[in-house]
């Protein structure tokens, strides 16, 4: 029974990562935009949703006590707005300027989470975020299963929406822009606008994921949104297969499993006083895995169906 509860808990977290990964897939897989600030966009969503839905408190501005669904919508919108600002500044420039700027905004927002105490609760973050199905919280299994169902449903909904979008003219033009900008331009498409739309859509989805995570866990703190998270999500997408939405979901579950397993393995193997230090090995494993995949199977486990994008360096004609 305990396993069932844990399994549901594990999968729910994996589902929230899947959502982030789907968002990243819109930006990278479909559009070729390298976002090194994923954690910040997730964090913005989490804080927004927390601010909107927590009951009013004396120490902080807000809570507005709004329903969770409103929090989620707000999370997606605010994160999309931040994405818009970052994208509008850099998408026109050389590709790695977007990487550097998103890396920068992650650091800046991390500082905001820490320092804007009246809004974010400082380093201690925000607690008592309302949870979905709080009524059955006493029954761990039921609570976790219901949350899993909700998260799973969200993943499915976003997956279907994205698949629909990618098959629609918008998605096809987007890929055309990614593969051959000049050709797409000569057909009268505006690559900058399209890229920006994709970046904002992806950012919004990440923000939503942040909201979902926040309400599932019940509290948030700046330390949840470190560059480590960005890195995990990237590993998930690259392992699963960039450009493929099912790959994004598979990668999220798989890498999260590797993460959890290597974590428990380390806690078995290393003595208690060495565990904090040994935990850094988990990151080494994921980092090496990311590099190996880029070297040996850049298309990931589930390659993009139509054509593997050119920028991976290995061309395959399918």
């Amino acid at each position, binding site marked *: 029974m305990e396993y069932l509860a844990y399994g549901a808990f594990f999968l729910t977290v994996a589902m929230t990562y899947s959502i982030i990964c789907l968002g990243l897939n819109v930006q990278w897989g479909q559009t*070729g935009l*390298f976002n*090194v600030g994923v954690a910040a966009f997730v964090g913005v969503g989490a804080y927004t949703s927390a601010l909107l839905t927590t009951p009013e408190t004396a120490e902080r501005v807000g809570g507005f006590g709004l329903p969770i669904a409103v929090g989620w919508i707000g999370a997606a919108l605010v994160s999309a707005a931040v994405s818009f600002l970052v994208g509008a*500044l*850099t998408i026109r*420039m*050389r*590709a*790695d*300027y977007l*990487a*550097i*700027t998103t*890396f*920068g*905004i992650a*650091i*800046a927002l991390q*500082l905001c989470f*820490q*320092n804007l105490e009246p809004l974010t609760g400082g380093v201690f973050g925000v607690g008592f975020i309302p949870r979905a199905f709080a009524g059955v919280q006493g029954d761990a299994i039921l609570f976790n299963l219901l949350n899993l169902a909700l998260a799973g449903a969200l993943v499915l909904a976003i997956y279907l929406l994205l698949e629909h979008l990618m098959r629609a003219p918008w998605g096809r033009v987007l890929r055309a822009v990614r593969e051959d900008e000049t050709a797409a331009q000569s057909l009268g498409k505006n690559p900058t606008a399209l890229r920006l739309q994709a970046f904002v859509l992806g950012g919004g989805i990440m923000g939503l994921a942040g909201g979902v995570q926040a309400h599932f866990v019940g509290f948030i703190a700046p330390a949840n949104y470190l*560059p*480590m998270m960005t*890195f995990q999500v*990237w*590993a998930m997408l*690259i392992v699963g297969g960039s450009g493929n939405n099912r790959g994004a979901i598979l990668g999220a579950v798989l890498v999260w499993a590797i993460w959890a397993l290597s974590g428990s393995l380390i806690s078995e193997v290393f003595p208690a006083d060495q565990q*904090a*230090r*040994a935990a*850094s*090995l*988990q*990151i*080494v494993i*994921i*980092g*090496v895995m*990311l*590099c190996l995949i*880029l*070297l040996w199977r*850049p298309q990931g486990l589930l390659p993009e169906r139509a054509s593997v994008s*050119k*920028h*991976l*360096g*290995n061309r395959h004609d399918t």
Partner: protein
Amino acid sequence: MNPQAIIDGLIAGSTIGLGAIGLTLTYSILRFANFTHGDFLAWGAYLTLTVSGFLGGLLAGLGAGAPLAPFSFGWGLPVALPAGVAVTILLTLGLDRVLFGQLRQRGADAIIIVMASFGASMALRSLLEFIYSSEPQYFTRELQIAQKIGLGMRATPDQLLTIAMTALLVVLLHIVVTRTPTGRAMRAVSENPSLAGVYGVDVDHVIRVTWIIGAGLACVAGVMSGLLVQIRPYMGFDLLLPLFAAAILGGIGSIPGAMIGGLIIGLAEAFTVQLIGAEWRAAVAFVVLVLVLLVRPAGLFGRAA
């Protein structure tokens, strides 16, 4: 306003500038934004610390372990530095051989190489944490008293040494790049690598030289930062955004630009700490970066794209 911020800014800016020079060189010659560069600083500091700890024991045995007045460190550190530089260079050349070089050869897009550098950076940093733990470490336990240097500013001998050392290295490097055949070849490769091959330049050799310069400066910058502040696994990662901001502010590929960019960021950080508060220091580089991208994306000395 307290003039002390000026000297504080110049000291911090020296480290940033030295790091940014290496970054801007790899950026312009290898054509990718290298996220592992910050970690080269940290690895350089730790490697030098390891060697100097070893030497320190040895020298103490020989009765030569005492600090070199007026500085806070003994012979161990200056003797260990070249060894640290050498090992840091080996580390970067090794990383290029197994990772970046492989991707380059396959003709992978620059952005894939950027991503690989991001993954490698995480792994390198965590490996440091595993080997040395996250406990801060120091080159010396000696305390130094800041002395008056005029105009209401104070600095320690160690701090003045780092500024002098930076100035020396930058002038040397500038001469190498503008006056020597190697420097010419580097500028040629940064403009057009395939044409450089046609001219008879061995591009792989130029790439190796670039890594050697970048890694060497990164190690020196890391040691300076470690000497003046402390050595932590995250020290390089925390410097990465200032390094990028300085390189872009100076104009990618420009050595004087990177140095001046570094000094500007150092000064901006020092004044922010004084006027707004230390907790916002890390955001300064981001603000500078955004301003540069808004106003002059090619940077101060960059050629317009």
